[in-house]
């Protein structure tokens, strides 16, 4: 039901979005703070200087923006539902990123630590499979290549 879904992600438990702005741990960690939660985790995806033996200068991330935000919200909601109570904030940066830039930040908080690790791990593994974002690496040699990625599992149609 649309209204139930809207309330669920509106109530501070979940933030999920795509941005072109620089991001970091500080972008997401404050969003999951809770006096009832004794565990908090941050995962950062960071642009590396190499991949498959080649020196990388930078990467270009592109998104099917509306579907990606929808999918990110779905994944965040699933991660919370899996271990609740929990708070989660997940943001993916797109555009031109340099080595060392953060491409993805996920923060999770839960009362105890096991659930925080579980929810965070779930979120990153699911978005790697399902998020409509593509990455093109720029190499030191001057060429660029779209990375071969994951084929998403066919989602169940919700009627």
């Amino acid at each position, binding site marked *: 039901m649309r209204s139930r879904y809207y309330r669920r992600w509106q109530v501070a438990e979940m933030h999920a979005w795509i941005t072109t702005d620089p991001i970091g741990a500080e972008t997401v960690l404050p969003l999951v703070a809770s006096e009832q939660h004794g565990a908090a985790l941050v995962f950062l995806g960071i642009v590396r200087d190499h991949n498959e033996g080649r020196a990388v200068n930078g990467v270009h991330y592109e998104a*099917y923006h509306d579907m990606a935000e929808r999918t990110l919200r779905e994944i965040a909601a699933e991660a919370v539902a899996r271990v609740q109570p929990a708070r989660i904030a997940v943001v993916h940066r797109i555009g031109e990123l340099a080595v060392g830039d953060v491409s993805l930040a996920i923060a999770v908080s839960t009362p105890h630590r096991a659930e925080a690790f579980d929810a965070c791990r779930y979120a990153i593994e699911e978005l790697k499979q399902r998020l409509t974002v*593509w990455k093109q690496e720029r190499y030191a040699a001057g060429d660029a290549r779209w990375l071969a990625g994951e084929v998403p599992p066919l989602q169940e149609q919700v009627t």
Partner: protein
Amino acid sequence: MQVRLLLFAYYRDVAGAAELDLDVPAGCSALEAVARLRARGASLTQIPERPVVAVNQVYASLDQVLEEGDEIALLPPVAGG
């Protein structure tokens, strides 16, 4: 009927366009719409016959029957995170 095809990343580069409107018969499936796109020839033949697709922003089977105004996104294997 008219449907809109969206192409991303590698598919957009080979097609030379991010968005294409396609005229298709009623009852056309996503698979048939992809075939019609590829039939335009040239670099479009580099798009696979059976890509992953989303219809109106939801992952869909290629068997899905399309409706007027549907947005069909052709999605290369994803590489986010």
